[in-house]
């Protein structure tokens, strides 16, 4: 089946200035991801996984090369343009959950819908929180939830806008093995149900093997793919 390309990177390069001079943390990275695909980016610490994720999601600007998301060149947009593209197409799940501590579980999930000006935010958020099994904990604050529960709230928040691409940065990094396995299960199930493209950064081989494709990185370069 010939599927549409949703995310493409061409000759990505990222340099930062450091006390020792110019440092290249990403060098000549090109890749293409089609709709519905699940891709794991693996590599040791400092290999450039998170930098690549940030560039692919338009959170940061490359020093050279470009990223195309749903046919739009992100590097041609200004920060607000990239923000608009993210709002339309992208969802995130983070290692440290990044829930807003002053908001309840329900409000955290409502947040991206409210930012988009959606009036049905509350109803939508309830449905998705039900899907992740937290229908009974809507009014709880992050500090009243366990780590696994917090990550489920974050997953609900990522899926509530029905993004075409979901970026997950070490989603089980802060969780114990059992809880981590459940979270991954949930993530893949929701992904399949929604037909979302998943880009997953991890150093857990077991998780990576569940993906359609594994991209391996070392010292800022792609060193292998499967």
């Amino acid at each position, binding site marked *: 089946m010939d599927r549409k390309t949703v995310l493409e990177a061409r000759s990505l390069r990222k340099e930062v200035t450091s006390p020792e001079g110019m440092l290249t943390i990403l060098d000549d990275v090109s890749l293409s991801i089609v709709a519905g695909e699940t891709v794991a980016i693996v590599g040791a610490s400092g290999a450039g996984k998170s930098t690549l*994720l940030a560039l692919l999601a338009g*959170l940061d600007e490359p020093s050279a090369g470009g990223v195309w998301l749903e046919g739009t060149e992100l590097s041609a947009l200004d920060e607000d343009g990239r*923000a608009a593209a*993210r709002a339309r197409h992208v969802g*995130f799940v983070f290692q440290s959950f*990044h829930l807003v501590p002053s908001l309840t579980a329900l*409000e955290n999930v409502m947040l*991206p819908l409210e930012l988009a000006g959606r009036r049905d935010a509350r109803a939508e958020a309830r449905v998705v929180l039900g899907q992740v099994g937290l229908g009974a904990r809507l009014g709880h604050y992050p500090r009243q939830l366990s780590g696994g529960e917090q990550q489920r709230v974050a997953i609900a928040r990522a899926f509530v806008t029905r993004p075409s691409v979901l970026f997950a940065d070490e989603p089980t990094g802060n969780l114990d093995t059992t809880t981590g396995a459940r979270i991954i299960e949930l993530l893949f199930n929701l992904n399949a149900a929604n037909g979302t493209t998943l880009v997953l950064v991890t150093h857990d081989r077991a998780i990576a093997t569940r993906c359609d494709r594994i991209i391996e990185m070392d010292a800022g370069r792609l060193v292998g793919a499967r």
Partner: protein
Amino acid sequence: MKALRFALLALSRDWRSGELAVLLAALLVAVTALTGVGFFTDRIGQAVDQRAAEVLAADLRLRSAEPIPESYEALAAEQGIETARIISFPSVVFFGADSALTAIRAVGPGYPLRGRLKIADAPFAPARETDELPGRGETWLDSRLLARLGAAIGDTVNIGASTFTVTRVLDYRPDQGSAFVDLAPSLLIPLADLPATELLGPGSRASYRLLFAGTPGQIRDFRDEIDERKSKAERLESVDEESPQIQASTRRAGRFLNLSAIITVLLAAVAVAMAARRYTRRHLDNVALMKCMGAPQRFVLQVTVIELALVALVAALLGSLLGYLAQELLTRLVGDLVTVGLPPPTLAPALMGGATALAILVGFALPPLLQLKRVPPARVLRRNLEPPPLRYSVSYGLAVAALLGVLYWLVRDVRLVGYLAVGIAATLAVLYGAGFLLVLLAGRLRGAVGVAWRYGVANLARRGRESVVQVVAFGLGLMVLLLLAVVRNDLLKDWRASLPADTPNFFMINIPAAETADFVQFVEARGLPTPQLFPMIRARMTTINSRPIDEVVAGNDRAQGFAEREQNLSWAEQPQIDNKIVAGRWWQASDRGKAYVSVATEYQEDLGLALGDRLAFDVAGETIEAEILSFREVEWDTFRPNFFLVFSPGTLDGLAGTWLTSLKLDLEQRKMLAELVRRFPSVSVFDIDAILSQVREVIDRASLAVQYVFLFTLAAGITVLLAAIQSTRDERRYESAMLRTLGARRRVVLAGVAAEFTALGMLSGVLAAIGATLAGWLLAREVFDLEYAIDPWVWVIGLAAGAVIVGGAGTLAARGVVNHPPISTLREG
């Protein structure tokens, strides 16, 4: 619209979760303190002004050499302003074969509009206040006049074509002034009896006055209206030319009140700045998250600003209300001491409080909050990504500009604000540098102390920059508290002491040159100290640098006042001790033979004079001219004989002059006055007891009020400091949780926090003491013109207060953090 909706949502959620509490509390305390102090100083200020206005017997006075049209009264009546008329002129009063030159004052109903007349039943006898005026056919004479005529109550005297019965001794008029303008003794008659005397014909030298009284707002508007309408001959008179002494005291009282207002603003600024910092830091993550979810920069900015504006609005409204209540409570507590006749507060302080808090918030919170807009969204992946750092000049520049703007708006005193600006800048620089050094030193010390202290002090050193900011903030806060607690007392004491008990209360004028020796002997023979005599010559100014005076002063009311008035010239070898040369120099022996004059700064300002200008005077037909060699600042409120114009020795030789002196006479000693007036008939005795007590009353009332305002400010200041400490607790959460996870007992962690705050407090306290001492010295010297002795207690109190307030409050605030289960802190991510 979307931003507003979202901001409202965010506001209600932040509020519910307690996120806004610290910022709101700091703002609330700031506005409450500002408006509370504002309301109170406003009322006190009004009361002091009212007291000062008694010198005019009105709030506003119009004077003319021609009858004043009745249209002014109609205009005043329309606006609900009270009026009263006075016509005064010199004339001769007859009692049998005796006669005396007198200043006749025909007063209309309502006089005096401000202050009260005092009357007595015998010359120089104790007086009582009255609201009455002489009835038709009656007159009230002052003691000097009765003594000179040898008349008594019940006698009849002739004034022009009419006969009047003396019914009272006139002891005191609020508008009798002290500038020796009315040299002749005065008497009161009813205005309605004036036509029958047939004294007011063409060419008579009458002075017409129309008095006005109303609320400050009414008077302000009315003054503008009159200013436009009045004819060339008509002149508005102000308090300061009538009584420089009262004006000087009022001004000083005003400065004290301003000082407390300024201190409140500074404290509020510290609190708001600290809270805004915390608010911004806590919002960094949320903003990054919002941007990651696709919120545009503009939206983030709008939401932030709207939310902040709403917080400010709530704080302004609620704070003004609390400020009003606090002030009301305060006046109740103070009771009768100052509330007597305390006018109701105006609405201005509420506006001022709100606007000030807003300005401070904008100055301190906006620059860091604007940074939020620039938070890189990738911060969600890498926590250490911060927005690009603000240039200090931008962030603190705006804050300092806002602060100075507010201060100027508040006190309208360029000099005071200028000194403050320099003071604040210097203090901040010194605090910053010293804080840095002390933190460095504390780091070195850590090996020498116990585990709790080591942890605490190590924390201080590790958080270097952060600690310095806190030392600066607490130091500034403690410094103003010290200024309040210790320095204020010294300043007030010095102010009170500036009018000691032996301040002269009688002036003797017109002592003929030939009788000076006899006069001194007469006074000494009655057991009084030898009086110091000053020469005095009456003159009119004719030209400035050969230009006719009328031409120079045209269009300037105050200058006209000085120019029209007869001047008292004097000469001296040495300047009086309460005079300060502010420009030029005093003459020396080598200047003998040259005609020089030293001019009071009041003249300099109003007539626009410069060193080297030549002033000419007409002294009984003779012209003398002298060059201005110096300008002097005169402390009028010391009540020593002082002159606007003092000439070099020899310049006034050969001119017909008299001498004057001042004496301190108690009630018993006053009995000799009747004898003195008979023995030296040309001498005029001038009772300044009344004006002296007016000034004393202004000082007493104002200093008492200032005490309470300061007390209130002190309470507000401590609250503000507590709020600031609260805002630092976040920074300690993780550490505390971490240490406890590592197995530290709660007690150890708490002791460490206590050690850190106590060390911080002591560092701040020492710096605050240095700052307060310098500020006190500078304020005393440059703003209040008072002597100031360094008070060692500042150091003790500074150190102790720093340790107790900052250490205690910090530990208390951190207790909640330490008690927080470590796992939930760590889990919040």
